[in-house]
């Protein structure tokens, strides 16, 4: 992951401080995360075999990762046999260059895009723009972000930090500059806003010759790619263009078609809190007389093999990007996605970004500390990634690496104080058990009754929010009712 992501991103604590001062952002976020938490809980509660599905999902991912080379080769063979072409990229830059070359080979100057974390990660839109190719984002939230010249702040709802009035303003101001303008009498009714997006983008879909997507899953056994979405913009991009280019991380492969029966149940309920998302598309290579005649699959490493090399950190590659962990995270809810300085925010971002990108930058080194270790993320994760365990493990790594740096960083001071608690997962578990005994950490109503021991390390080192010098715990009690 060499994404130029967010240049000059400050380390998490100071970015968080800025975000916390933005009351509108906090209000929008709190509203959104509360709504979606409730929906997810309901959707999960009606499934009687949820825990069995989670365990199966985790196990399939473990099996895949431990034999990843074999599954990727099988996938490559099947995709190729079905008429697709497979490209390999060591890093984001290489992946972006492959895509640029492929688009240039078609002679086209514009592409339509389905929302994809991976293409954001590799800075694809910027690379295309440098080559004189315009990339149109077609997901409603991505459109809001793109038109607002903004950055996504949530995996699932990238414009979660924008409310309807702001979206209306952005549409009125910017749509006309990029195509069909929004009607002058546009209101902030979500239905009308969606209608404006439909009209604005329809023209682009109908003339598009090249589509660019990611994929939620790749099936090794059959060479099938799967995209899960809501709006139908994905279907447009996957179906109407003549050429389809999908950029997918190597960890997205699953062994068999049957395995999808697990993930197609886990993902929608965890993600949007729906029994099933409105549209899921799957395709295998190319099909005569249906959809693009040319299909390119770009397989991206971009730090994934570094993540794979750490037997504890490896589980972060299980992630199916549902964003449930963001929505339950007390830290994310207060500071939003931008403070994490990466396309992967929230708890998963805190464990994935430093592994994909390394910890050379202060902003990435501070990420494993962007957590209270309350454990809510682990509880909701549909593929059972033990995020607190990985966080603690990464903190230890950051500190060890820090020994070779001369300047004592706040992380090291915090670690020195909390060393005995943080030394290993078993001690962390003990600390969490102790904390849990005092009451549920994160109640269903979203209140924290008590923070666990390790959290205080973060609190002390970080002198989190407003007003200065108030402890996280005291601040949380005071503000989060």
């Amino acid at each position, binding site marked *: 992951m060499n994404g130029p992501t967010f240049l000059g991103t400050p380390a998490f604590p100071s970015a968080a401080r800025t975000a916390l001062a933005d009351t509108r952002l906090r209000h929008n976020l709190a*509203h959104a995360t509360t709504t*979606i938490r409730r*929906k997810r809980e309901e959707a999960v509660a009606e499934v009687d075999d949820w825990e*069995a*599905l989670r365990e199966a999902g985790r196990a*399939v991912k473990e*099996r895949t990762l*431990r*034999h990843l*080379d074999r*599954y*990727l*080769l099988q996938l490559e063979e099947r995709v190729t046999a079905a008429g697709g072409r497979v490209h*390999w*990229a*060591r890093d984001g830059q*290489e992946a972006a260059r492959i895509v640029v070359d492929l688009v240039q080979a078609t002679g086209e100057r514009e592409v339509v895009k389905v929302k994809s974390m991976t293409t954001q990660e590799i800075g694809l839109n910027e690379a295309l723009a440098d080559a004189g190719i315009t990339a149109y984002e077609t997901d*409603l*939230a991505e459109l*809001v972000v793109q038109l607002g010249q903004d950055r996504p702040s949530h995996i699932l*709802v990238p414009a*979660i930090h924008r409310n*309807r009035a702001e*979206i209306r303003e952005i549409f009125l101001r910017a749509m006309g500059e990029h195509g069909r303008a929004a009607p002058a009498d546009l209101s902030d009714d*979500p*239905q009308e*806003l*969606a*209608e404006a997006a*439909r009209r604005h983008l*329809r023209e682009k879909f109908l003339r598009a010759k090249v589509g660019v997507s990611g994929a939620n899953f790749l099936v090794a056994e*059959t060479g099938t790619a799967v995209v899960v979405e*809501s*709006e*139908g*913009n994905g*279907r*447009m991009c996957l*179906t*109407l263009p003549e050429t389809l280019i999908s950029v997918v991380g190597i960890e997205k492969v699953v062994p068999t078609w*049957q395995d999808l*029966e697990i993930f*197609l149940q886990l993902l929608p309920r965890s993600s*949007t809190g729906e*029994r*099933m*998302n*409105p*549209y899921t*598309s799957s*395709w*295998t290579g190319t*099909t005569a*007389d*249906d*959809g693009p005649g040319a299909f390119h699959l770009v*397989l991206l*490493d971009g730090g994934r*093999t570094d993540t794979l090399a750490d*037997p504890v950190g490896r589980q972060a590659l299980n992630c199916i990007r549902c964003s449930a962990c963001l929505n339950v995270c007390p830290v994310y809810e207060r500071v939003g996605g931008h403070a994490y300085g990466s396309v992967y925010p929230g708890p998963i971002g805190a464990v994935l970004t430093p592994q994909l990108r390394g910890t050379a930058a202060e902003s990435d080194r501070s990420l494993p500390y962007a957590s209270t270790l309350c454990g809510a993320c682990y509880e909701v994760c549909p593929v059972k990634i033990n995020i607190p365990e990985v966080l603690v493990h990464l903190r230890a790594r950051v500190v060890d690496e820090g020994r070779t740096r001369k300047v004592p960083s706040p992380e090291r001071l915090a670690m020195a104080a909390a060393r005995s608690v943080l030394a290993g997962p078993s001690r962390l578990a003990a600390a969490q058990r102790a904390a849990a005994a005092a009451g549920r950490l994160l109640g269903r109503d979203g209140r924290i009754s008590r923070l666990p021991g390790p959290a205080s390390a973060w609190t002390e080192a970080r002198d989190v929010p407003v007003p200065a010098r108030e402890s996280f715990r005291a601040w949380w009690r005071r503000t989060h009712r």
Partner: protein
Amino acid sequence: MNARTEVLSRIRRALADVPEGERPEDVPVPRAYARGGTAAAGSPQVVELLTTRLADYGASVHLVSEGAAPTVIAQTLSARGAACAVVPQGFPPAWLAALDPHRVLDDRPRVPVRELDRVDSVVTTAAVAIAETGTLVLDGGPGQGRRALTLVPDHHVCVLRAEQVVARVPEALARLDPVRPLTFVSGPSATSDIELDRVEGVHGPRTLHVLIVV
């Protein structure tokens, strides 16, 4: 070293902790979740569940008898005010009996997408439906057509037979052929991007009518 060789060798290096002789099947995958349905495919229970689930998404659902199907299809289109509908190859001709043939396009030769954008409705069958999640799956088989047909028009009428309705996701996947391009449709197109309210209708058909022939 080219990228492919390098990525593969990085993976092998990263997996140094995996014992030499370990095979994928040595990593256990417990499938303790429900694979079969609570009720048999096509039973009144699954049909009723599908109906409720689809209605939750804002789709209109009607149960019809084989004999009444042609009339109900025609009524659905005329109530919509549809001037013309595209109907893919292989759709049961008997079900089209009550339609004015001049208002039916058969996608042969292929209707260009710009024209498809002016077609009011599309009428198709489906490959399978999943009751628990309120999902229709189209696989491009007879009566379903290429994917663009059920995407560009704003109104989709989907006609299925009760025996195509299964209870759960695993049963549906077992019936499907992944080599075919598949579209899983759970209600009309929708977005939750604005303050997480589900709003129907962005790019796919904004109105979905489902007729279940029982």
